[in-house]
C-alpha cells in the first residue's frame, strides 16, 4: 500500500504444477512458508518485484516526512513538537531499514535515490496531499498510519526474510504514530472549542478518501495482485485490507464526534461490515501520474535537500580518508 500497483512483469500466474526446475523448488518453499533469504535462488521477476515494492515503500517513508515536517515549527506546544519530531525521525529510520532491505537484492542506495529524484520511482499517493492545518497532523497519524499498520502487519509474514524482519521493527514503532495522531484529535474534538472541532472535521473531509485510496485499486483492477499473492509478498487483497480499515475506523470517528464524508456509509448487519460509497479512482490515477496537489513540490524538496546536503557527505568521506591515511602512516 505504501507500495501501490507494484508491477510483477508477469503476464499470467502459473500454478506450482506447471512449474519445473528451480522455479518449482522456489514456489514449493514459498508455499511451505519457508523464508527466502538474500543468498537463495529466486526468479528474476520475484527479485525485480521486491526491489520495486521495497524501494517504493522506502521512498514513501522519506517523502512522508515532508507533510509532517511542515508543522514542526508551528506545533501548538513543546510536547507536541517533541512528539512530532520523534515521529518524523522514526520515518527516516523506516526509510533506512527499507533501503537496507532493498540493497540485499543487489541494488544500491544511490540507484534507488537517483530513480526517485529523476521522477522514475513511485511512492505512495497519499504523500502528495498538503497539510493545511494542525488537525491534518492528527489525520495523518490516525488515518494514514492506521492504514499503513493494516498493510504492514501481514507483511511481517511475507516470503522475503529481510523485508519481513524490517516490517516487524516498523510495526512496533508505527503504533506510537497512530496513537499520537488520535490523541491529538481527542484533544481537539473532545476537549477543544467549536472552531477546533470544525478544523478537525474539515481535515477529515479532505483526508478520508485519499486514505481509502492508499490500499490501491479495487481487486478486479489490480492485475499484479495474483502473482504477488502467489509469491506470498502480498497476503491480502486491496479490497480486503480497505474493508478492514473502514470497519476499524468508523467507531473511532464516532468517538471523536466527527462525520465521515460519505453519505453512503452504512452498517450492514448481515455481512457484519460497513458498506461505503464509490471511490473516485480518476483522482488516484491523476495523483500517481504527477498531478496531485504536491507532487512537484515534494520532488523539488527532496532533490534540493540531497544537493544542499552534498557537502556533509563529502566532508564525512574526506575526514574518514584522512584518518585512514594517518593510521596507515
Amino acid at each position: 500500500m505504501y507500495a501501490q500497483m507494484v508491477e510483477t512483469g508477469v503476464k499470467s500466474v502459473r500454478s506450482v504444477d506447471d512449474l519445473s526446475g528451480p522455479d518449482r523448488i522456489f514456489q514449493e518453499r514459498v508455499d511451505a512458508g519457508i523464508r527466502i533469504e538474500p543468498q537463495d535462488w529466486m526468479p528474476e521477476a520475484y527479485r525485480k518485484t521486491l526491489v520495486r515494492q521495497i524501494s517504493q515503500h522506502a521512498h514513501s517513508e522519506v517523502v512522508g516526512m515532508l507533510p509532517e515536517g511542515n508543522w514542526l515549527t508551528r506545533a501548538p506546544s513543546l510536547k507536541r513538537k517533541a512528539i512530532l519530531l520523534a515521529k518524523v525521525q522514526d520515518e527516516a529510520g523506516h526509510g533506512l531499514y527499507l533501503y537496507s532491505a532493498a540493497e540485499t537484492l543487489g541494488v544500491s542506495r544511490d540507484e534507488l535515490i537517483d530513480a526517485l529524484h529523476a521522477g522514475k520511482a513511485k511512492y505512495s499517493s497519499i504523500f502528495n496531499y498538503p497539510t493545511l492545518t494542525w488537525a491534518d497532523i492528527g489525520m495523518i497519524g490516525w488515518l494514514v498510519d492506521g492504514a499503513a499498520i493494516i498493510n504492514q502487519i501481514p507483511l511481517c509474514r511475507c516470503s522475503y526474510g529481510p523485508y519481513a524482519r524490517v516490517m516487524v521493527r516498523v510495526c512496533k514503532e508505527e503504533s506510537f504514530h497512530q496513537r499520537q495522531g488520535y490523541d491529538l484529535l481527542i484533544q481537539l474534538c473532545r476537549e477543544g472549542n467549536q472552531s477546533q472541532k470544525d478544523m478537525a472535521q474539515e481535515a477529515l473531509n479532505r483526508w478520508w478518501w485519499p486514505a481509502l485510496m492508499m490500499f490501491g485499486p479495487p481487486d478486479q483492477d489490480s492485475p499484479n495482485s495474483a502473482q504477488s499473492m502467489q509469491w506470498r509478498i502480498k497476503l491480502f487483497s486491496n479490497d480486503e485490507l480497505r474493508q478492514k480499515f473502514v470497519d476499524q475506523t468508523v467507531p473511532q470517528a464516532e468517538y471523536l464526534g466527527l462525520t465521515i464524508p460519505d453519505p453512503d456509509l452504512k452498517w450492514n448487519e448481515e455481512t457484519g461490515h460497513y458498506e461505503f460509497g464509490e471511490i473516485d479512482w480518476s483522482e488516484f490515477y491523476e495523483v500517481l501520474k504527477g498531478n496531485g496537489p504536491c507532487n512537484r513540490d515534494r520532488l523539488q524538496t527532496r532533490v534540493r535537500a540531497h544537493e544542499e546536503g552534498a557537502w556533509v557527505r563529502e566532508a564525512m568521506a574526506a575526514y574518514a580518508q584522512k584518518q585512514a591515511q594517518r593510521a596507515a602512516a
Partner: protein
Amino acid sequence: MSRSTWPLWEVFVRSQHGLAHKHVGSLHAPDAEMAINNARDVYTRRNEGVSLWVVKAADIVASSPADKGPLFDPADSKVYRHPTFFPMPDEIKM
C-alpha cells in the same frame, strides 16, 4: 571515497537485560565512529540497548544455506548431549 563506496556495516545491540548482542540491521557509513553514531540514532531510539557493535559486512563470514544439511547434521544423531536423555529416579534431585 564517494558515498557509493561507503562500506556496509552490520549492527548488533545488547539490551540491558540481555546476555548477547543481537543483529538488528545494517547501515552505510564512511568510518567506524560514524557507524556507531548512526547505529545509535537509528537502532536505539527506544532504550533498546546498552552496548553497540558495528562490524563491516565484508568481515563477516557466513555459512552457506546450501551446506546447511551436511554442516549441521552431525548433531542430529547425538541426542545424548541433552540432559533429558537421562531420566533420573524420582528421589534424586539432579
